[in-house]
């Protein structure tokens, strides 16, 4: 079935003289470009892009798309990524004229509808988080972390305090320490207990007057809600520090508990996860941040404000950390989030989270008989199983299991993360999957653990390619096509 010719590199399909786009003739005086742009700036020839016809472009990219697994085609239980259904209505509505064709620097009077939408989104995100001051500007979760840490730093500077440390648990996403460093902080890792919670003794030992921010993901990356969070906040606040909530796992708690109510001072959302994305093959995302009212004045500019029934962009915020990106934000993603929120309403959001918990717990109840789940028999929206025993007994690794699942038509869970669980298999089913799908996944997992080790080491067997040689890719890097 596969069209091998069409899925060659586009450069290999190129033939001099072919083209797809035909531009209109020039309806203004067609002056010689040499007269308009001097030789010192003008290239002799256009860049050596491929030359292909439109039918070939369509066939090429369509065939490439078919080499992907996606939420539209497969169950995609990639832990920590919340690969839920991407509603088609959101795609259509984000592409409406009047939204998609608006220039970022138009006068406020010409974009009242859009500003109203964005203002309402700010209010809704503030309500869901319990942190009323909102910036829609950051481009992704990691970018939101960075912006919020800059907000914290600006606040400390205003207070005349020198706080140099960001603390994060050992289960934290890698972006946490990386963002902390970019915001000028040193990072200190806090241990987790064997049950996967923050080790309070270790936290106490590491708390001092240098503490700036404690970054916590709650539920954490093991899928456990750390019930000590209010206590943690109390300890950190007592030292003058702030609590940052990494909102990667917000899908577990919408309408059930609010970060602002359990002690967080700042957080980011991942609307591409929690509010149905889509993930776009690795972006775009967005990373709106919410902070306490007291920290609001430090948020990036601009924010949307309302005066009566008029909306405007507010740039006049003297204590703002400034801009963190060009223009307003990833509006296309934000419009989709707005649509998602209006589709669900308060009750619907809470139900979506409750059903995400049900699906995860149901799958956990089936999987733990196949692969042990070290952190117990209850989870929030995801759980982390371990293939350590399988590896020890039969030499079959988490990677082998992940790869074999592809043959059964399931995308792999996240593997080898978090780092604290050996041979980790992190499974997040989301609420938009049926019982039948979850049963089929558990059944596949069970069958895989019964299969011969040799078969598993070589898996996958039915995918467009087998396991790539990553060592060769890194040693002899080939990062672009070159003509032979």
């Amino acid at each position, binding site marked *: 079935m596969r069209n091998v010719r069409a899925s060659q590199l586009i450069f290999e399909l190129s033939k001099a003289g072919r083209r797809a786009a035909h531009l209109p003739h020039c309806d203004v005086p067609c002056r010689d470009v040499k007269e308009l742009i001097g030789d010192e700036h003008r290239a002799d020839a256009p860049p050596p892009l491929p030359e292909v016809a439109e039918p070939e472009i369509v066939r090429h990219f369509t065939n490439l798309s078919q080499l992907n697994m996606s939420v539209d085609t497969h169950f995609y239980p990639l832990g920590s990524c919340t690969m839920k259904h991407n509603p088609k209505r959101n795609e259509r509505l984000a592409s409406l004229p009047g939204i998609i064709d608006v220039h970022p620097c138009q006068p406020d009077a010409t974009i009242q509808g859009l500003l109203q939408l964005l203002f309402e989104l700010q209010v809704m995100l503030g309500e869901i988080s319990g942190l009323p001051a909102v910036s829609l500007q950051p481009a992704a979760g990691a970018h939101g972390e960075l912006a919020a840490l800059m907000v914290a730093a600006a606040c400390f500077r205003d207070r005349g305090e020198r706080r140099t440390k960001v603390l994060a648990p050992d289960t934290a996403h890698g972006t946490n320490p990386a963002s902390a460093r970019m915001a000028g902080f040193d990072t200190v890792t806090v241990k987790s207990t064997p049950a996967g919670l923050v080790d309070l003794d270790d936290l106490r030992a590491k708390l001092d007057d240098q503490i700036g921010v404690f970054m916590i993901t709650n539920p954490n990356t093991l899928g456990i809600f750390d019930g000590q969070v209010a206590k943690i906040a109390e300890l950190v606040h007592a030292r003058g520090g702030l609590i940052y909530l990494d909102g990667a796992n917000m899908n577990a708690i919408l309408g059930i508990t609010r970060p602002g109510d359990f002690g967080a001072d700042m957080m980011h959302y991942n609307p591409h996860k929690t509010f149905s994305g889509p993930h776009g093959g690795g972006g775009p995302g967005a990373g709106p941040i919410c902070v306490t009212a007291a920290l609001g004045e430090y948020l990036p500019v601009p924010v949307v404000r309302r005066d009566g029934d008029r909306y405007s962009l507010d740039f006049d915020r003297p204590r703002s950390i400034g801009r963190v990106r060009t223009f307003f934000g990833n509006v296309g993603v934000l419009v989709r989030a707005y649509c998602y929120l209006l589709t669900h309403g308060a009750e619907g959001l809470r139900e979506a989270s409750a059903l995400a918990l049900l699906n995860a717990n149901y799958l956990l109840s089936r999987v733990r008989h196949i692969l042990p789940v070290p952190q117990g028999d209850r989870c929030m929206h995801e759980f982390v199983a371990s293939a350590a025993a399988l590896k020890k007994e039969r030499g079959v690794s988490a990677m082998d299991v992940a790869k074999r699942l592809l043959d059964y038509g399931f995308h792999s869970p996240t593997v080898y993360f978090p780092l604290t669980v050996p041979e980790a298999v992190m499974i997040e089913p989301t609420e938009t999957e049926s019982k039948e799908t979850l049963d089929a996944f558990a059944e596949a997992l069970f069958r895989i653990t019964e299969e011969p080790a040799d078969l598993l080491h070589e898996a996958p067997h039915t995918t467009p390619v087998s396991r790539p040689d*990553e*060592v060769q890719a*890194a*040693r002899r890097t080939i990062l672009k096509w070159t003509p032979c």
Partner: protein
Amino acid sequence: MGKPEELLYSETHEWVCVEQVDGAKVATVGITAFAIEQLTDLVYMELPEVGSQVTTGGEFGEVESVKAVSPLYSPVDGEVVAVNSELPDRLETLGQDPYGAGWLVRVRLSDEQSLAKLMNFAAYQKQCADEAH
């Protein structure tokens, strides 16, 4: 360079061979066969420039496998006087001849105190045996 039995070792798996050159003590530093095996499939290495200063326990470079980065910690104090600049392009040499052609840097020692903290072959072997379990 020397037989493994005659070298000194750090806890962080570097080996050291000290020689007298033109009246100064110069230490050749490499990484041990045990470490190379643990790191698996090295793909990249970054070494310091000649003339840079290294201090005991400080990072002087790093090695990478596909999914891990490991810093190289200096077992001695002094100035780098030579670098095995061909090695990053021939990482297989590390596996083939870790105590010879796989050397990393030569350091003219500014201080010999750190040598006293290094292990002999037997002590290092015991450490490796402990780590393997």
